[in-house]
């Protein structure tokens, strides 16, 4: 039931757009998807859809590539071991199930889209590191078998909006009580706790109709809608200010005993010197 919901949702998107809030109120929870889109024609809006939650942020300035827009917007990127710098394997640590050694499989990878504001998604024909998004456009990442992000590219805005991670609760969990987001911050759009929220995402069934049908007023976009006792929003609000910089929020690929420092390097060099010296000494002894 839960697994079929996104596909069902995609079929329903058109109907939802037609019937608007009526259907959204019955079946789905409305979503402020364009919460953190860039304002005006500056910056590149980045939409990341894990299949469970949608995260929209803004990369300021003119990033040189889709990848740089992704990192500039505060997402942490893990590359496959064999394709560093050219293929996205994990965004904010999702999916944790992929070992990130080889190319991700064709039915579980981050598909890369680009779009104009308010336009339609285009599956990018060039790589994430070679596509250069123009300022004022949108790049989208959707995890899955190459489907589109489930939110439409945010429409152009004139005003700045604060950053909100729009993670949705399950419709069945509790009656909807819309509260204001606990982490509403003023500009510049911050990247607070996006990693924590997205890491929780697989267990969350989200339903995100296009924002321009669900939330007609832009002022509503600053509020998330947490409900129920254990929603991801609660997690995200628990760590609001620990992630001051984008990279600090990134789950680093390092062993549990902390970042290896000079001791590790010295130990490695000593080991290499020992074995390499042994090889050299043996060769020299045989020649003599």
């Amino acid at each position, binding site marked *: 039931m839960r697994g079929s919901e996104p596909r069902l949702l995609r079929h329903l998107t058109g109907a939802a757009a037609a019937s608007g809030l009526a259907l959204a109120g019955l079946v789905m929870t409305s979503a402020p998807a364009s919460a953190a889109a860039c304002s005006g024609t500056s910056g590149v809006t980045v939409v990341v859809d894990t299949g469970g939650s949608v995260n929209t942020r803004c990369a300021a300035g003119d990033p040189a590539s889709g990848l740089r827009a992704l990192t500039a917007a505060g997402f942490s990127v893990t590359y496959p071991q064999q394709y560093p710098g050219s293929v996205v394997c994990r965004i904010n640590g999702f999916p944790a199930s992929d070992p990130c050694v080889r190319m991700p499989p064709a039915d579980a990878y981050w598909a890369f889209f680009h779009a104009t504001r308010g336009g339609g998604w285009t599956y990018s024909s*060039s790589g994430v590191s070679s596509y250069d998004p123009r300022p004022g456009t949108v790049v989208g990442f959707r995890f899955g078998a190459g489907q589109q992000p489930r939110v439409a590219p945010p429409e152009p805005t004139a005003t700045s909006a604060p950053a909100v991670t729009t993670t949705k609760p399950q419709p069945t969990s509790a009656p909807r009580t819309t509260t204001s987001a606990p982490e509403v911050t003023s500009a510049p759009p911050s990247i607070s706790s996006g990693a924590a929220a997205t890491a929780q995402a697989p267990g969350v069934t989200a339903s995100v109709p296009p924002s321009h049908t669900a939330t007609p007023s832009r002022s509503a976009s600053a509020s998330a809608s947490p409900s129920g006792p254990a929603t991801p929003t609660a997690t995200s609000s628990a760590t609001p200010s620990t992630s001051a910089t984008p990279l600090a929020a990134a789950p680093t690929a390092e062993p549990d005993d902390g970042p290896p420092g000079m001791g590790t390097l010295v130990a490695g060099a000593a080991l290499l010197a020992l*074995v390499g010296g042994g090889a050299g000494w043996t060769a020299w002894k045989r020649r003599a």
Partner: protein
Amino acid sequence: MTGPMTSSLPRAVHPAAWWGWAIGMAVAASTTTNPVLLLLALCVVALVVAARRGTSPWARAFRLYLWLGLAIVVVRVVLHVLVGLKFGEIVVLRLPEVTLPSWAAGIQVGGTVYLEGLLAAALAGLRLAVMIACIGAANALANPKRLLRALPGALHEIGSAVVVSVSVAPQLAESVQRVLRARQLRGDTTRGLRAVPTVALPVLEDTLERSLLLAAAMDSRGYGRTEHVPRGHRLVTGAVTLGGLLASAVGIYGVLDATTPAMMGTPTLLAGLALSGLGLWLGGRHVPRTTYRPDPWRGAEWLTVGCGVFAAATLVTVSRMTPELLVMPLTPLAVPPLPLAPVVGLLVGALPAYLTPAPLRPAARVAHRGARDRVVVRG
């Protein structure tokens, strides 16, 4: 018979064992981009080569493979700077970038070079260089002629042909040197192009004479004799071998392509390999052939192969369980980790340098003719 027992008497370790060990080390190196582990694998391979290589011409080839590896790293880095996709945060070099048309997307000519991208390129090159050094180690340690003698009976004619052809180049070089020395002794010191006619004819004559001698020697040893094989048996052998090869090809395709049905993958490949083995066995049954002083396969051989397999198994397991330990952390850039299990696995790969019998030396071979009990080792 393991370790100290067999290492007391110098003898050549079975070439197939060296190849098994080297492939294991290459598989281990292929799983990692951690520079410490890659360099450790290189040092281990170099140590074993230094300790256990023979005195044959190909035993000195290991240095060439090291130079080849260095060239690979340099070319990889230069290509990254010229046309590679640059990524990273730490700027190393600012170069102008050529704007290419959209159909050339994926190629970045010039552009700012970052430390992370440069390191990734160098480490990818280093990984390939270490794998090539492993193969070079197998070439330096294993006698190719002895390896061909271990071929299954059905392939012995191919083996003889390959042995004859790989012997041509060294023999030709030796022949040229012999003729040049003979001419110098007679006072003829012509060099360069003018010496070619006076050298070429004796070398050609020498080659022909050797070929005739080789042919006579092979004929007297029974090469080229065929036993009568019933027609039905020949057909069955051919069908089994061909079917096995076809199934192997389909199986490899199935293993590599994730979209094919599961039955086309590993099961087909295993069935194909089994059929091929059966075909070889059937074909070899009718080849009357014995091997003169076959290379023994004893404890030292098991140990050598086991060390290579252990190194490969350790690193493959670690790469499945905790792949981040084997990766150079590039984003963000950090000191590479030094995980215990892969280090131990690679160090086990160095054990053949000490636990296998020492290789034969020329002095030892001469001593064998007279007194077998007293082996004189030069040095």
